């Protein structure tokens, strides 16, 4: 399995993703530089990692979507290639139009870093088929702009198509405001495109691949091969 990790100036989870894929999952991993157009066909998975691409002084992901590598990524996704956007990567994929909706400031206006629980809402995507439907995962978040929003029509569509892949929940899998760390609409923690090859999520599966770090619940998500 060959995986790629995109590096924008300001990406800061690129190395974490690289090590998780290489050391924990045994993949061959390449960094993909933002300013290079590349043929990505040989990759089984491309990760758009977390961080603060180009400083994110304007709006998270707003500049990254214009990077050269993004054209390559669009081609790759259009051919069915697997693209996983985590945190800033999720924001970038939304800005780039590869995923519906947008991510705005957390409801408390503060950056939040903590382990959260998320429920697998659709266990039939390429990323979730190693989980049970309704399984609760413990995966950390670390973001200031993670509040997922979209219009009502989009929300209906996401629900109808099963594109809501993860929702924030209690340790027992119950939904509620107390378990939603950022005020996301419908407790959404991760969404896929209609073809299910592009997934965006705020929690960091690459930080949850070893028990030494508190959880290995994210490992199966990266076993897409």
């Amino acid at each position, binding site marked *: 399995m060959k995986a790629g990790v995109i590096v924008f*100036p300001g990406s*800061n989870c690129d190395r974490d993703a690289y*090590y998780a894929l290489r050391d924990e999952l045994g993949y061959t991993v390449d960094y993909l530089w933002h300013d290079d157009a590349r043929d990505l066909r040989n990759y089984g998975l491309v990760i758009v990692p*977390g961080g*603060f691409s180009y400083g994110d002084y304007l709006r998270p992901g707003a500049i990254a979507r214009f990077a050269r590598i993004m054209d390559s990524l669009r081609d790759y996704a259009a051919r069915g290639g697997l693209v996983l956007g985590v945190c800033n990567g999720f924001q970038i994929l939304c800005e780039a139009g590869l995923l519906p909706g947008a991510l705005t400031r957390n409801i408390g206006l503060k950056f939040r870093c903590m382990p959260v629980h998320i429920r697998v809402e659709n266990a039939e995507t390429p990323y979730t088929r190693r989980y049970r439907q309704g399984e609760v995962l413990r995966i*950390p978040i*670390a973001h200031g702009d993670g509040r997922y929003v979209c219009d009502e029509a989009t929300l209906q569509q996401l629900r109808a198509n099963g594109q809501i892949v993860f929702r924030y929940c209690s340790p027992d899998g119950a939904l509620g405001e107390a378990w939603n760390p950022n005020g996301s609409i419908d407790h959404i923690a991760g969404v896929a495109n209609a073809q299910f090859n592009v997934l965006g999520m705020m929690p*960091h599966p690459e*930080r949850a691949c070893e028990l030494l770090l508190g959880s290995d619940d994210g490992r199966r998500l990266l076993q897409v091969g």
Partner: protein
Amino acid sequence: MTTQRRAPEVWREMGLTDAEYARIVALLGREPTDVELGMFAVMWSEHCGYKYSRPVLRLFRKYRESLEGAGFENAGVVPLDEQLGVAFKVESHNHPSAVEPHQGAATGVGGIIRDIFTMGARPIAILNSLRFGPLTEPRNRYLFEHVVEGIASYGNCIGVPTVAGEVYFHPCYSGNPLVNAMAVGVVPLARIVSARADVPGSAVMYVGASTGRDGIHGATFASETLGDDQEEKRPNVQIGDPFMEKLLIEATLEALETGAVLGMQDMGAAGLTCTTCEPTSKSGTGVEIETSLVPTREADMTPYEIMLSESQERMLLYVQAGREEEVAQVFRKWGLNAVVIGRVLQEPVLRVRHRGEVVAELPPDYLTTQCPTYTLQADEPAYLAEAQRLELESVPVPSDMNEALLALLGSPTIASKRWVYEQYDWLVGTQTILPPGAGDAAALRVRGSDRGIALTIDCNARYCYLHPYRGGQIAVAEAARNLACVGAVPRAITDCLNFGNPQRPEIFYQFEQAVRGIADASEFFETPVVSGNVSFYNESEFGAVYPTPTIGMLGVLERADDAVGMGFREAGDVVLLVRPAARPADAEPHFGLGASEYLSVVHGLERGAPDPVDLPTERALHRLLHTLARRRLVRSMHDLSEGGFAVALTECALAHGVGVQVDLPAEAVDHAPRPDAALFGERQTRVILSAAPQHASEIIALARAHGLACDTIGATGGERIQIDWQGARLIDLPLTRCREAYEGAIPRWFST
């Protein structure tokens, strides 16, 4: 060069005395140019020149130097194993944070991070020690909220986790908060970079952000007392750009791989002046630079401004001649400036040209080693003898110990700092094994090594106020104990010495005594002070801050997964208390209540002296804890500090929501005659352990073998905290109530 006679106001305004100006004229044999005068003013400030503290800091040097050559680099790098070393340093950004909390704190993080990657180390962790006035004051809430936000915005963006810290609240910090940031990095021992300019002819390369007019005379600003002109000083505070810093980290570490970088220093205090005079002074060489080549934000900047600017995210590299382009290319790939602005000279002269014209020319040593030092007068403060007296009989025993415990748990200094650390990304880098709140110190694995590291930052300033010498000793002992509690061997210290105006003899007394305490403990524990920073003039209209010598400490875990947390893990474990086998001969007659948080929170008293720490016993404890962790005999370890036994026990229970019942033996609390002393007395060298019952006897035997006493005092389980003493149930509280007090104390001041 244009030199001129000038009025005394000119140099006095810059913080130089008349005698210092006369010394400058004598050294040069002429009046300095304007540019030279500015350079002297910043380099001879206390902030850069340590002119008041140097004589006292020699106390650290003797011991440290005895280790150099034995593996400790002079850059402050501590070997982790055969291949890797750990670089770490703490620095204050107090005055900028008092004036502009967000940027002041953010640039404090940026500056200390640059100190780390300047040595060739990849930054892997940030810690911070923060002190504010009480949250009841809106101004203090504003400072606290924005300092935390500033640290978060900078640290999170550059992708270096903030893994541990401390926050204290006390009226002495109203008007002069303390913001100390510590950074830690890992470097291959073969690739350590020094701030040197050894090779004549090598290029002086400016990299990073463009130079602006911000922060001119920042070092001078740091070396005076904050006045009521704070608002006017806002432009003295630099503005941070963490994105630029992130690029600088990656580009610098990549550039080092070329092998063409001979030396490097970041432009912090005194900017281009410091980065040209210090390396050449150290190497006995000189340098010539042309300031018009420096990338600037504004076209008309003068050489004076360029030499003194403290714009952030800039570095000066000394690059092998002929390989400039190779290095510059790396920086350009990351979108950064990289410009050769001069060359290293054989002759020891620092020559600054602006459009060809010489605007400064002097031996680099004049700015560094020729900085005058002063031995200041130290007098025991008038308050001390009186404040150390404590008549316990006049302190009433509270009728309800539950209420007293809840009051302590709800005091912001003791309370949970979750509100703070959840704003920091503490896991980026995926090396954090014990995150904030999980252990007495942070623990990290280190990629490329089987070993791990433990990190802590700590100081009890009230102890230092009431007994500066013991306070200094205890700060070191407690930091080392925190590391031992997670299973690490304490290795080395970085310190940030925050004091008032040293020209006041009572302040200098505090400084000298605290430094002696630190030096003695550091030597005893064989944990040298390898780096540090002095911050004087921490005074405001409310007076001087308490003497606050913050101790940052590094420990080594033989295996990263040895790390032990502080919280009880499951019901049915035994709870043990380890303590000295005998009371120290010089123990205070206050049963740990002197200088205690209890006395302050419940009775509004700051009196008495802290109990002394017996260094041999303390070291025996560290060795015991390390052994227990290595042999995997314990499930948790947590030391007693502010709030004494009852607070420590409650913290163990709250960590994972596991209740506890204990019966406190009289000898475990030095036969304290009163319940508040038993519960809340602050005694040194004590740790609460939990373990599976079958390990209890082995733990007790090991403790005895180390010359310590250890008693089984109770068991975990249930959802309450219950403490019995002399047949009476002193504490009986549901965990939920304790949690409300402990977790709610800080968030309740902030609506969101």
